[in-house]
């Protein structure tokens, strides 16, 4: 039986994270990160996961104020968490566009040393000039070059990690040798990077920290098959999950890789209750919290691409059609990619048939929880999903900071452990080890 891989996603800066609940704590105090990480470790999770963004989001030219705003530098927080956890993997999203291979390779290898082999890197790329305004180098990348540069970036980072061989750190006073003479030497002459010299970090415990990839496009899938150890997938429904799983896994052979060498991990949400009916009530309550009247208008604007602030959230959908011009009112996040006119027609039909106002419609059409039910139902569905090859595990995204994972760990984890699909105790020390991936020592 396949083991279920589990990761804990710190709640992010979108409307999925409910900040209005009395139980919602700080999004930035270190104690919140410690709480979630320790909860995940108590639940024998494989790793903790942090998202990232290098510019505050804007809508209609102003900083978006309805969702949680503000987050830490991911690798700095993860280094702090290394001190207060023992086994939990620590994976952070870091943008390859606004970093340099030498510096990022160094920071990731450092985290791997400090955590004793628990570092992971979710590689994302970005080409928007909007985010580039925060950096010396600005935004400069052609969209088509994103994965090409990312691929070379990852290759360069791995060359740097490999620049210290296993025995290069000698540290033997008797022979007066601290490090072998050639230690750290590298030269990379490529299209995007032309660098050479010596790397400062000796080979880290994992040798190659875990690489995660999240893109879903053809380029993203090809990139994952060629280079990643895990995919953070958006395909959280059973049937589409199976299709995605087959597609990505089938690409591995061409790179000489086994199907087990790349783990597929959909990002998923959940709502629990003592009974399935109670869980459904909880799910509905959470959805209403996630879609405030103001958020309902805002999400509608994202499809309409127009200022809809004058509309009543409890009233009917706008009669005017979405603006389909290229110029987006949203900055700093991906625009909805489906056909706006077609989607608007579907939403209008749904609103009419169910007699829904704007807010209820938005609740209906966006972000239903992936798993809703009693602990035993959720455990069963999770296991089915994995045994049915729709996933190798999940990145769980709780809706509350920092206690949103407590119930899951207290009530669902023991059931997964009973089924023998989740470890009762950690048996490995590194993140690669937890995932059963090849070591690169």
């Amino acid at each position, binding site marked *: 039986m396949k083991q279920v891989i589990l990761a804990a996603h710190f709640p992010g800066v979108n409307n999925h994270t409910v900040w209005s609940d009395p139980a919602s704590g700080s999004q930035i105090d*270190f104690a919140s990160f410690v709480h979630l990480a320790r909860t995940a470790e108590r639940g024998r999770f494989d790793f903790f996961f942090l998202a990232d963004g290098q510019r505050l989001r804007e809508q209609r030219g102003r*900083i978006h104020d309805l*969702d949680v705003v503000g987050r830490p530098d991911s690798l700095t927080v993860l280094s702090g968490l290394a001190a207060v956890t023992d086994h939990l993997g620590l994976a952070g999203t870091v943008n390859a566009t606004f970093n340099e291979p030498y*510096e990022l390779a160094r920071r990731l290898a*450092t985290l791997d040393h400090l955590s004793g082999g628990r570092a992971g890197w979710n590689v994302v790329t970005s080409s928007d000039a909007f985010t580039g305004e925060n950096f010396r180098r600005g935004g400069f990348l052609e969209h088509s070059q994103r994965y090409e540069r990312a691929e070379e970036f990852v290759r360069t980072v791995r060359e740097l990690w490999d620049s210290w061989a296993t025995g290069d750190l000698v540290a033997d006073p008797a022979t007066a040798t601290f490090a072998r003479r050639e230690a750290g030497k590298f030269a990379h002459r490529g299209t995007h990077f032309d660098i050479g*010299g010596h790397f400062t970090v000796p080979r880290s415990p994992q040798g190659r920290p875990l690489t995660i990839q999240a893109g879903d496009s053809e380029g993203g899938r090809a990139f994952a098959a060629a280079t990643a150890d895990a995919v953070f997938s958006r395909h959280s429904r059973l049937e589409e999950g199976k299709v995605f799983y087959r597609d990505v896994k089938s690409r591995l052979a061409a790179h000489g890789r086994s199907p087990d060498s790349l783990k597929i991990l959909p990002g998923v949400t959940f709502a629990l209750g003592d009974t399935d009916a109670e869980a459904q009530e909880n799910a509905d309550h959470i959805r209403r919290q996630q879609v405030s009247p103001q958020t309902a208008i805002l999400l509608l604007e994202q499809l309409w691409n127009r200022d809809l602030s004058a509309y009543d959230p409890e009233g009917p959908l706008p009669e005017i059609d979405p603006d389909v011009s290229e110029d987006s009112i949203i900055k700093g996040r991906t625009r909805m990619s489906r056909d706006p006119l077609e989607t608007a027609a579907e939403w209008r039909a749904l609103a009419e048939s169910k007699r829904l106002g704007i807010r209820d419609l938005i609740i209906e059409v966006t972000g239903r929880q992936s798993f809703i039910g009693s602990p035993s139902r959720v455990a069963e569905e999770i296991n089915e999903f994995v045994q049915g090859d729709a996933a190798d595990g999940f990145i769980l995204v709780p809706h509350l900071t920092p206690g949103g994972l407590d119930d899951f760990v207290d009530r669902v984890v023991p059931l997964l452990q009973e089924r023998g699909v989740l470890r009762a105790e950690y048996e490995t020390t590194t993140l690669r080890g937890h995932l059963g991936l090849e070591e690169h020592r």
Partner: protein
Amino acid sequence: MSAVPLHLAVALDGAGWHPAAWRDPAASPKALFTAAYWAQLVAEAEHGLLDFVTIEDSLALQTTLLDGHDGRADQVRGRLDAVLVASTIAPLTSRIGLVPTATTTHTEPFHVASSIATLDYVSTGRAGWRAQISGRRTEAAHFGRREVPELRPENLGDLDKAGVVRELFADAADAVEVVRRLWDSWEDDAVIRDVATGRFVDRDRLHYVDFEGTSFTVKGPSIVPRPPQGQPLVTALAHSRLPYEFAARGADVVYITPHDSEQARAIVREVREISGQVRDPAAEELRIFADLVVLLDDDAKGARERRARLDEIDGATYTSDAAIFTGTPGELADLLLEWRAAGLQGFRLRPAVLPTDLTAITRGLVPELRGRGAFRRAYQAGTLRGHLHLPRPASRYAGSRR
């Protein structure tokens, strides 16, 4: 009882500042790249109630040359990222300040601002930054973005004339300014969580920093809310007029390297003069610390013998930009108090061998200073700024509305 207690920091670097430190019987060279090694050192420094530790860093292997790789296998080569090391230590300590080194030249100022602000959160108000300039071609070649001439002792004068050095410092000053603006870019009360209007933040209390320097621009605001200290401590090592100006403009603490009390007096006078010209008059007074390499032993002869032994192992007489003190903790206490009279607020001591000379500071020097009424018996403040009697500043944008 001396009127004002002095401030003490310790500079941590590898196995210690003497190049043969890693070959000392007390050293643990194999542990240099583990969290436990750094945690033990900082715990010892905190045990001595020191104000803060600094952690050295550079974006190239250590070298005995001014610029370039020396290929030596018999000295410590390799290091971890200092900011991340500091962040791992933070939850394991509770009072001591943590001041990692990060470069102004290659690291994006936006990333420096985020990571030091985050360190301030992880340490609940104990973060600082040693802003370091990297002018070496070796480091530039690791980034491949700038054409930089090699630094050689004989061409330093020419580079200076060509304005290369001045440009580096101007760039560094811009970087510090950007970082400080980003730390202020969220007003303290920006998070409002107002359920009635559905707003998490009051966006009028978030500010674009709109920095436009000669070589780069940064928009802002920070992705990290305002750090607990408001402005984490900014520090810089300085040896001459240009870096004194840099420190006087942007730093809270400057480390200088006099070799006797007369030099200390002269440098303090120069730094104060420059501060008078370039420092914001509303800013807190620049704290001046002198750097000293220290080799301590219970008797002076023992200390001299230790030094001679280390030099012999390394095959060279150790020299440093800073003065090298060899003697007993009691003698060091006398020297520090004598130098302090030149107008210094504190010292950054560089232990020659770790943990030996660190322990001699915390268990030898500190009691000696206390006996002279010149060092604290308990931490009085919870933040690094607090240790240095620096108030928590209001955001420069407070009250302004876009």
